[in-house]
Each structure stands twice: as structure tokens, then as C-alpha cells.
């Protein structure tokens, strides 16, 4: 039991399965405090799952996980332990916020873990200096190179002085120099804090060699466990990389390193790739600066360089994706031209990030790729099968890429790029994140393609043992080529012991002269003294009541910062509603005048003309060209030229005079019912006037005036009967739900798609705090929007609230809160951003326009529409908005509505809270 208590992590009988795939089988592991442990193994053997379980971001399916003296299955222990654990997930900066600066990113994490002010500032300062990020403190994380992103990720993880540091492939895709700096940093931190336990998954064997203990995994289980010396002794291998390959199941092992097969001698044709003075500028930043090289056919040309040095940009220019600012590029003897489709069939390209379809299976992706390259029929089937077996994807052929580990996804990209047998392969870090054995097998494929089929390969990599296999390599730094030559030549030229050393030497030279380089300071690294020097720096967490409020504030601050970076979105959020309100106030009108009608007068008498005068003299009607015959009625109504037609029969005048009540036909266009009803009402009114005049005329001749009963309409709330007075309160209702809801609708689902939601899983913050924090900035935007709409209504449209402004404002705050909460609810519910946008648009726009009493009085709603109206906030807010604006009512009249609105906000938020689980699967 003593070992157990000293252990930082103890796992027993862990079993995790996702669908049919077993990620971990009956795994047990004990990691003592202060241990430095490396986990190695092929892709998809359960390394990430294991780390996720230890970090508490994944749900435990079976078995027990004890971390830092508590059970990770218990939520209370997880939240107690969270501040002592730092977890950095896989992927280049996946957990960072790309629009926030370096400084702001670290600051967010520090606040999230409740670091007190003074201590936080010192800590951030120190971390940035040590990692060399200090000079880039204000640069947005999204604009950093891969290596710098990883360093930033590490800073974010270390900012709260964790006792347990979990890093999932932290150096994947990072150049050798940055990698060295990274590990130096970790070593220094550990030297200061010997009690810190470090668990790292890595694909670099030379890195793993530096750890106290190495665990090799395969197929969800641990297959070897021990120090480097023990593993070497056990396998009888000279290097750890070899030992690793020995430990693999035979079928996983790659071919032996390819001895240098002589390259096919080019048959005198033009070189495969030529670049001359290739330059790319983005604004005043020169990403690629006059780069020139020649790659012969059949050559394997390696592209090395620090992160962010312009390799990817160069490759994109060669593929035609980016037009070069300056210089010339040729592919297979032809100038690169984005419009040249025929050249494109001859190249294969793998981009750094996964760019195939997540929604298609592995096989589906290959098939689509083949078809788009013009391969069909039996050839396609064969090629896909070949690709699947060659890149060892046959077992996962029907799986979606999303479910695959990084390495397999890379293999899939390669399989696709090779499917159409291209002459040139342009591969942008294809092996980042791929385990050593798989890389080995992959390289044998490359060599085979190059040597046998004469395929030219242009590949960028950070692995020196891969660079050594290239015919020639080019070293790039800060947009320039530093050196080109065969690997051994470069090594000799620098007099270095290894290519790695040669590379670092070149880079250090360049960095010394360069100005924009990241140079880590050698300043002393010190963790906080164990005994707090001053009271305010106490490690003790802030008062428990205050902590949640602070974390909510932290999330709100971050969201607001992100929003403030996106000026366009901010502008749309504020200007959009005003624009629409103007359009509504000006455009929506039920005032119908000038109804177009035409007459078919088959009587042509004095009486018929007198009758028709009643219509032609009215401002409600506009007479059109007369109808010639009966059939015209149908034709012209059908064409939409007329709203109604009047048909006067022959003998009308005679019948009228004789008191026979002649029949007059009115034909309405009944298609659009509102104008039709209006027309009917106006016609009836006109007939009434006509009858009255006739009666008066006859009475004037023979008797006293008849009794009349007057009807006095009192148009209440809107005496002038102007549409704008009725429309404006409704516009506010409509706009204050659509915009705020849309603003939050992407909040959660976007973080799910981007991966930063993992920060919430790992942190001590609760989902409720996260949601509320996310919501607050948008509530503020909504309130701003309300105020601007109010000012616009009063100032421009002349619609001023007659009743209680307090009630209206209170209602607006509650309404905006409910709207943003609804957006979050949609966001928590859906799985894609597309569905989030559509769902929000439909649900808010429909209910607000149809079931809220906007155009149709709420009292006239029936059936399901009435239920929908009542179960959604717009109807309730509309009652208040209309009541205050038009009816001049006071606050007490709205008590019920206000309570209901508040209830909606809390209810939506609560539902959203229930839909988001604090841990991933």
C-alpha cells in the first residue's frame, strides 16, 4: 500500500472501448511521484486514451484510475485535483485560442486556475522569457509557427505550477532546434520541482531515451516497461529506435532501412521542379524570399527548416495554390499555372493539416479522390484496394477519419495523394505524428516509388533520420534557403557529428544574425518558493465562493477579447439590427391603397357610369384599361395585373330604375388573401356609400331624411393608424432574439470542432461557469443593441415608448439573456456548425415572425402555433414591447411576463448545461 500512496498515478484493470475498437485492454500502471515517464507506441494503440483518462478529460468505462491520491471517477476529486494537473492535448495548438495573443492565452489559463494577480503576472513574464516567446507577446496564437504554438501550449499548461504534467506528443511537427529548447525547458522546470511527475507520449525515440522510464504500448496494452538501458538489453538493440521496432509485432515492422539504391538516371528530360527567385509577400511580411532550387526527376528532395520559415508557402506556390509575388516556378518543364488542369493530374499533394473529408469513410475518400482524378471502373477498385493495403488502412476502410489517430490520418492522406500515380509528390510534413515503425514503412514506399517508378518526391520533414534518406536536402530559415546538398555533405561542411547537429548549427548561425528569431533567455527559472514569501501570493485557492465568479469572469473576458478581435463580426452584430429595423419601419406596411381594377361595362348607360364613378373617384382604387370581353377577366386576373374586376350586365340601368336590383359581378384575385379581403371590404364600403346616395336622392324627392346609426371607431394606441407604430415594437422583439441567439449559437459547437473545449474538461471550472461566462459578453452586446434600437426608434422613426421605460429595459435584459441562452442550448445540442446556424435561424426567425403577435395578434393564434408561441420568449416580450410602446402601460402590468422571460433564460441555460458533459468519451 505504501507504493500506492507514493504513486502519483495508479491504474488498474482499465478497459476502454469505442464501438468495436478496443482502445485499452485490462491495463494496469503505477507511476511514482516525480517520475519522468515516456509512452511510445504505434498510432492508435491507446496512448492518447490513456493520457486522457489520467488527466480526467475522458470518462472511465471500466477499472480504476487514481490520480494524486483520489479516484478520478469521482467528480469532486476531479475538480479538487484539476488545479494540480496540467494536460496538453495532441495537435498543434489545438487547445489555444488563435485570435488571442500569446500573452492573453497564457493569462486566460492562469485566471482559469485562479492564480492571484501579482503571482500571475510574474509567472507569465517568466514563462515567456524562458521560452523565448517574450518578443511575440502580442502576436495572435494563430499566426505562430507550429513550434511556437507548442511552446505556448506548454506555457499555458505550466502556468499554474502543476504537480502532474501530461503532454500528448508535444513536439510533433516541431523543428529540431525548437525541440531541444522545449526539452531543456522541461528539464529545468523539473530540476526546480523534483516532485513534479511528467508523463509524455512521443514519437521521437531519442527524446524518449532521456526519460527515467519508458513504456511501449501496442494494441491497448503495455508490451515493455523499463529504463532505456533495460529496454536495450532486453531487445539487444543498439539504439532505442531499433529496440522499438524490435518490440513491434512482426507485421508492424517496416522493411530494414533502405540501403542507398542508386537513383534512376534522369533520361535527359527537364527537371521535375524548378524554382527561381520564388518570393511571397503577405503585406509587408516576406514569407518566402528569393528561393531557388532544382529537383531532378526521380530525386527525393528533403525540405528542412525551422517552423514558420516558409516551407509550406513555398510548396503551395509550387502546387499553384498561391500565386507567387515574384519569381518563376516550373513543374515538369511547364510554368506553374493554377488553371492548368493537366499538370495537376501529375502531382500529388499532402498538406500539413488533414484536408480530406471527415464525413466520408477512408474508402469513400479514396474513391472520391480517384474519381476526381479521372480514374474509374475496375482500375479505381484496384487502385483503392492497393492503396488500402499498401498504406495499411484495410482494417479501417469503412471508418470515418475522425475516429482515427493522427498517424493513420496522415497515411490516408498519403494513400490519396499516391492513388493517381503522380509523377511528382509534394508532401508537407507527411510523417508528423506518425510512429517510427510506420514512418519506416512509409519511407520504404517512398524509396520504392522513387527508385522503381521514377517518381520525384519533394518532402518536408522535421525528422533527421528521414532527412538522411533524401538524395539532397535544403535547409530553410526565415524565408531563405541556407544550404542545399546531400545530407552527408552538409554534415561534413559543418563538421558536425550528426545531421541534427549540423542543422541546429545552421539555424543558430542564422538566428544570431536574424532579428525576428526567438531566443530563449538563459535567465534563471525558478518556481515559486514553497513557503509563500508574501501573504497575497499564498498558493491557497481564493475563497470558495469567489472562485466560481472569478472563473465565469475569466471565460467572459476571453470571449470578449475574441469578439473584440473580430471587428467585422462586432460591426455586424451592432449595425445589422439597425439596418433591418430601418427596412422594416420603412417597408412593412399593411396600408393598402391603389388597388388595381378594371371594368367590363356591358350596359354603357348613364346609370352604370354613375355607379362606376363611385370607384374611380376613390383613392383606394386605380382603374386600369377597360376589359373588352368576359374572357379578359380571367386572363388579366391570372396574370396578376388586376386585384379585382367589375362586371356590369347589359340592361343594368333599366333594371336599376325599375327597382329590379340588377346583379353586379365582382371578381377578386383570391390568391393573396390579405389584399383580397381588403379589396372586398373597400368594395362593400363603396357599395354602401352608393346605396346611401341613391336613397338620399330618392328621399330628397319624397320625404324626410332617414334615421342613421353612426359607428364611431376609436383607434386606440395608434390613432393615426400608421404601420410604423405597430411594426417597431415588433421589430425590436424580432431583432433582439435573432442576433443574440445567432451570436452564441456557434459558441460551444465551434469549440467542439476546434478542440479548445478540452480546456474546460481539464480545468477546475464547471460547465455552468463556462456557459455563463461565454454568454455574458453577448448579453452585453444584446443590451447595446437594444439601446441603439431604442434610440433609432425614437430619433429616426419617431416611435417613443409611452409607458414604463424601466419595464421595457428590464424585459430587454431578460429577453436578451434568454435569447443568448437559447443560442447556447442549440449549440450544445447540435454536432455541426451548419446545423447550429440553420437551427437557430429557423427556430428564432419563425417563432418571432409568426407566433409572437408581431403581425397577427397573439389572441388569434390557434393550434400548434399557439403552443409554440407560448413556449418561446418572443410572444412574452412582444406583449411588453407593444404594451410599453403603444399602450403606455406601467411596470406592474407585466409582472407575469417578466417572470416568464426570466424563467426562459434560466431554463435554456439549465438545459444546455445538462447537454454538455464535463468529460469527453
Amino acid at each position, binding site marked *: 500500500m505504501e507504493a500506492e500512496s507514493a504513486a502519483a498515478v495508479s491504474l488498474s484493470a482499465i478497459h476502454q472501448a469505442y464501438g468495436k475498437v478496443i482502445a485499452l485492454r485490462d491495463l494496469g500502471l503505477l507511476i511514482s511521484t516525480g517520475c519522468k515517464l515516456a509512452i511510445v507506441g504505434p498510432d492508435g494503440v491507446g496512448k492518447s486514451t490513456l493520457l486522457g483518462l489520467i488527466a480526467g478529460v475522458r470518462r472511465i468505462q471500466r477499472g480504476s484510475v487514481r490520480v494524486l491520491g483520489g479516484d478520478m471517477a469521482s467528480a469532486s476529486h476531479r475538480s479538487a485535483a484539476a488545479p494540480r494537473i496540467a494536460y496538453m492535448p495532441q495537435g498543434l495548438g489545438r487547445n489555444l485560442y488563435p485570435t488571442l495573443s500569446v500573452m492573453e492565452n497564457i493569462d486566460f489559463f492562469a485566471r482559469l486556475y485562479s492564480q492571484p494577480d501579482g503571482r500571475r503576472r510574474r509567472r507569465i513574464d517568466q514563462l515567456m522569457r524562458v521560452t523565448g516567446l517574450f518578443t511575440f507577446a502580442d502576436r495572435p496564437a494563430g499566426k505562430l509557427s507550429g513550434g511556437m504554438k507548442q511552446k505556448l501550449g506548454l506555457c499555458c499548461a505550466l502556468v499554474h505550477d502543476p504537480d502532474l504534467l501530461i503532454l500528448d506528443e508535444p513536439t510533433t511537427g516541431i523543428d529540431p532546434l525548437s525541440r531541444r529548447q522545449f526539452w531543456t525547458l522541461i528539464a529545468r522546470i523539473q530540476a526546480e520541482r523534483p516532485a513534479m511527475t511528467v508523463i509524455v507520449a512521443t514519437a521521437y525515440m531519442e527524446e524518449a531515451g532521456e526519460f527515467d522510464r519508458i513504456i511501449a504500448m501496442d494494441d491497448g496494452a503495455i508490451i515493455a516497461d523499463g529504463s532505456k538501458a533495460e529496454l536495450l538489453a532486453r531487445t539487444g538493440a543498439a539504439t532505442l529506435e531499433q529496440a522499438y521496432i524490435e518490440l513491434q509485432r512482426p507485421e508492424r515492422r517496416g522493411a530494414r532501412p533502405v540501403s542507398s539504391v542508386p537513383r534512376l538516371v534522369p533520361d535527359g528530360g527537364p527537371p521535375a521542379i524548378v524554382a527561381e527567385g520564388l518570393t511571397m509577400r503577405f503585406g509587408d511580411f516576406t514569407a518566402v524570399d528569393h528561393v531557388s532550387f532544382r529537383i531532378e526527376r526521380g530525386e527525393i528532395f528533403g525540405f528542412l527548416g525551422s517552423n514558420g520559415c516558409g516551407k509550406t508557402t513555398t510548396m503551395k506556390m509550387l502546387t499553384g495554390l498561391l500565386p507567387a509575388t515574384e519569381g518563376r516556378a516550373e513543374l515538369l518543364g511547364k510554368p506553374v499555372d493554377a488553371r492548368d488542369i493537366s499538370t495537376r493530374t501529375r502531382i500529388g499533394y499532402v498538406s500539413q493539416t488533414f484536408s480530406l473529408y471527415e464525413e466520408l469513410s477512408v474508402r469513400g475518400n479514396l474513391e472520391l479522390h480517384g474519381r476526381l482524378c*479521372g480514374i474509374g471502373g475496375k482500375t479505381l477498385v484496384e487502385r483503392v484496394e492497393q492503396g488500402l493495403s499498401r498504406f495499411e488502412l484495410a482494417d479501417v476502410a469503412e471508418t470515418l477519419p475522425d475516429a482515427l489517430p493522427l498517424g493513420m490520418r496522415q497515411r490516408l492522406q498519403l494513400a490519396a495523394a499516391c492513388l493517381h500515380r503522380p509523377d511528382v509528390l509534394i508532401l508537407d510534413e507527411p510523417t508528423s505524428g506518425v510512429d517510427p515503425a510506420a514512418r519506416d514503412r512509409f519511407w520504404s514506399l517512398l524509396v520504392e516509388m522513387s527508385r522503381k517508378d521514377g517518381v520525384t518526391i519533394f518532402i518536408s520533414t522535421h525528422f533527421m533520420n528521414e532527412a538522411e534518406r533524401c538524395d539532397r536536402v535544403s535547409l530553410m530559415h526565415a524565408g531563405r534557403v541556407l544550404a542545399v546538398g546531400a545530407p552527408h555533405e552538409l554534415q561534413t561542411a559543418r563538421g558536425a557529428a550528426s545531421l541534427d547537429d549540423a542543422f541546429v548549427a545552421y539555424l543558430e548561425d542564422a538566428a544570431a544574425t536574424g532579428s525576428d528569431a526567438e531566443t530563449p533567455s538563459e535567465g534563471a527559472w525558478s518556481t515559486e518558493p514553497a513557503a509563500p514569501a508574501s501573504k497575497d501570493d499564498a498558493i491557497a485557492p481564493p475563497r470558495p465562493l469567489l472562485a466560481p465568479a472569478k472563473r465565469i469572469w475569466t471565460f467572459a473576458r476571453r470571449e470578449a477579447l475574441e469578439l473584440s478581435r473580430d471587428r467585422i463580426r462586432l460591426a455586424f452584430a451592432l449595425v445589422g439590427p439597425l439596418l433591418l429595423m430601418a427596412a422594416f419601419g420603412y417597408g412593412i406596411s399593411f396600408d393598402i391603397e391603389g388597388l388595381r381594377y378594371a371594368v367590363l361595362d356591358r350596359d354603357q348607360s348613364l346609370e352604370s357610369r354613375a355607379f362606376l364613378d363611385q370607384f374611380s373617384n376613390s383613392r383606394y382604387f386605380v382603374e386600369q384599361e377597360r376589359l373588352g370581353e368576359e374572357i379578359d377577366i380571367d386572363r388579366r386576373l391570372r396574370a396578376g395585373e388586376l386585384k379585382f374586376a367589375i362586371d356590369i350586365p347589359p340592361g343594368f340601368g333599366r333594371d336599376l330604375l325599375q327597382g329590379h336590383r340588377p346583379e353586379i359581378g365582382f371578381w377578386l384575385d383570391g390568391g393573396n388573401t390579405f389584399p383580397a379581403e381588403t379589396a372586398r371590404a373597400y368594395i362593400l364600403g363603396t357599395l354602401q356609400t352608393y346605396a346611401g346616395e341613391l336613397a338620399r336622392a330618392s328621399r330628397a324627392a319624397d320625404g324626410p331624411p332617414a334615421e342613421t346609426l353612426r359607428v364611431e371607431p376609436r383607434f386606440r394606441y395608434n390613432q393615426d393608424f400608421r404601420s410604423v407604430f405597430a411594426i417597431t415594437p415588433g421589430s425590436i422583439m424580432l431583432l433582439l432574439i435573432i442576433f443574440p441567439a445567432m451570436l452564441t449559437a456557434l459558441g460551444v459547437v465551434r469549440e467542439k470542432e476546434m478542440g479548445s473545449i478540452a480546456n474546460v474538461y481539464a480545468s477546475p471550472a464547471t460547465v455552468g461557469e463556462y456557459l455563463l461566462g461565454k454568454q455574458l459578453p453577448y448579453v452585453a452586446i444584446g443590451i447595446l443593441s437594444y439601446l441603439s434600437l431604442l434610440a433609432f426608434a425614437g430619433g429616426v422613426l419617431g416611435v417613443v415608448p409611452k409607458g414604463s421605460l424601466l419595464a421595457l429595459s428590464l424585459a430587454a435584459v431578460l429577453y436578451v439573456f434568454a435569447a443568448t441562452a437559447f443560442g447556447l442550448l442549440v449549440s450544445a445540442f447540435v454536432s455541426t456548425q451548419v446545423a447550429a446556424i440553420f*437551427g437557430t435561424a429557423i427556430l428564432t426567425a*419563425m417563432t418571432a415572425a409568426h407566433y409572437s403577435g408581431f403581425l397577427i395578434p397573439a389572441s388569434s393564434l390557434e393550434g400548434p402555433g399557439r403552443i409554440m408561441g407560448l413556449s418561446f420568449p418572443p410572444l412574452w416580450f412582444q406583449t411588453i414591447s407593444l404594451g410599453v410602446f403603444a399602450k403606455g402601460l406601467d411596470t406592474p402590468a407585466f409582472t407575469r411576463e417578466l417572470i416568464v422571460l426570466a424563467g426562459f433564460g434560466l431554463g435554456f441555460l439549465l438545459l444546455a448545461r445538462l447537454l454538455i458533459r464535463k468529460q469527453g468519451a
Partner: protein
Amino acid sequence: MRRWIENAFRLGVKEFASLSRDVVMVVLIAYVFTFAVYSEATAMRTDVNDAKVAVIDGDRSTLSGRIKDALRAPYFRPPVEIDRSSLDGLMDKGAFTFIIDIPHGLEADFLAGRSPAIQVNVDATSISQAGVGTAYIQQIVAQETTSFLKQAPAETLAPVNAVIRAMFNPNLEAISFTASMGVINNVTILAIILVGAAVMREREHGTIEHLLVMPVSASEIIAGKVWANGLVILLAAAFSLHVVVEVVLRTPIVGSIELFLAGTAIYLFAVTSLGILLATVANSMPQFALLSIPVFVLMFLLSGSFTPFESMPRALQAIMDLSPSTHFVRFAQAVLYRGAGIAVVWRDLLIMAGLGAAFVTLALYRFKAMLSRQS
């Protein structure tokens, strides 16, 4: 050309796979074309049908009784008798659109020739009912008094026998109007968002870039998105019209559904292209979401499917003429309600096609610019 069609076809087929993986999205689409259309049609009355009326009968005479009885369906709900003291409260609550106040001694005053007045309190904030409803109430009162005085049925007293018939929709039932306009609005919102967001998503995931390295052109990518998503929406709209509108709601459709669907196809080309254009203008999904709101809300509310297009100011009419939805609504009303043929609607179809071509050209032009911006 064959390659172009093949590629566009393949890319379109891929869209189906994407869509079918998104269960929530499929459910939402099903919802808007079935239940949403149904509830909209049954809940919505754009005309005075079913206005809620209350009567304060201070007279309780034969005349006041006749007036009350004459307030009948389909224009009015059966009137509710209320007390005068609750008048203001009920009006404030919006419980009734009209409250008719019949004073004490109405019949006596009337017979004595003292020309009494009936007061009608109208909630003028419900502008869709207030104007027309007031006109009806005035006529009903006038008719009933004349007929009361002459002791004869009202119909026989007018000098002329006016026969008002509504063509295409004899009972002036709003249900058929709202139902099919609901379908149209769904088509618009869905087309813009589904296609625009799909392009945005591919941009954010880098898949468009990948396609452009392959022998695939931007026009093929756009064509694939337009035809596949357009087809889904077209089928949904056809189902909605045939099954929900015709069978479930039992509202007859006068015109040719086939012509309507053909026009819808053209319209879909125009709006999906607009969606793609919006996606090339925005920089990220949240921006796209916000950018799309004004577009679809304006198309939704100002195209004539909601309020009469003719009632809008001329300048706004001219602006809205640039929106394909205006022409589509005009086309749809002509075909669905008035049974118009191609001879009547060809112009609107042509304009929609022209607008679509303009959008798609602009979108193509912006496509390359958008790719170099994001890298």
C-alpha cells in the same frame, strides 16, 4: 466538358454523404418542411378571419341583439359579452381586437331619429386586422339597422345585388396562402445557410484547398454544391407541397406543381449561389452566420410573402427587385394561386436565372481571392 460534369456530379454525391451524417440537420430539414409548415398554416391568419370581438351591450334590445348576431364567422369569432368596467383592462391585455360598445337606449334613440352612435374600440396595433375589420363592422351595423327598420332581410334592400366572388380561392382561405408561402420561406433560408455554411466548413477544414490541387476547378466545386443541396431542398419542397399542403392540410393548389418545381429549381440555383457568395465574403463561420441574418430576414419579410409587396415604398420595391426571392414569390403566387402558365411568369424566371448567374460569377471570382486570404 464531360470531365466537368463528372467531377461536379461526384462532388455533389459527396454532399449527400456529408448531409446524411448530420442527423440533427436532417431532422431540422424534415421539421421545417412538415410540422413547421403545418403549424404555420393552421395558426396564421393574415386576414380578418377569426378576429376576436367583445360586445358591451348596454341596450339589450332587439337591435343590439341583431348586431351581435351578425358578427359571424369566418370574419369574427363569436362575440363575448363583457362588462364596461373591464374595457380598458382587456384592451390593454390585447385580449380582443375589437370591443363594440352599444350604449343604453340605442334602439329607442334610433327609432326616435336621435341618430345615436355605437363606439368601436379598435386595437390599432394589430394592423393586419384593424382596418378591414372596422370596415366590416361598419357595414354589418348599417345593414342590420336598415333591415331592422324596414323589417325585411338586409339582402333585399340594396339597390343593386352585388355578387362578390373570389377567383382561385373562393372562400378566401388564408391557409392556402400561408402554407405555400411557408414552404417558400423555408426554401430560402435553407438554401442560403445549407450551401453557404457547407462552403465555409470546407474552407475551415482545408478540404477546398485540397480539391484545388487536384484536377478540379472552382466552378466544379460550386456546381457540385449547388446541384446536390438544391436537389435536397427541391425534393423536400415537393414533398411538402404534395403531402403537407395538399393531403394533410387539404388545400387545393390551382396551378401546376410541375411548373412551380421547375421555377423552384431556377430559384434554388440563384439562392444557393448567393449562399456561396456570402461564404466567400465572410472570413469565418461566425461571421457568415451574422452576415446571413440580414440577407434571409429581408428576403423573408420584404419579398411579398408576408406583407403585400405593393404596399412597400417604391424605392424599397426597386431594391427588393434585385432579390431573387421577390421574383420567386411573384412567380409562386401566379402559379400556385392563380394557375398562371409560363406565358405569365417567364419574365420572373428569366430574372431569377440572370441574378443566379451574376451571383455565381461573383462567387467564382471571389473564390481564389478567398483562398489566398486565409493562408
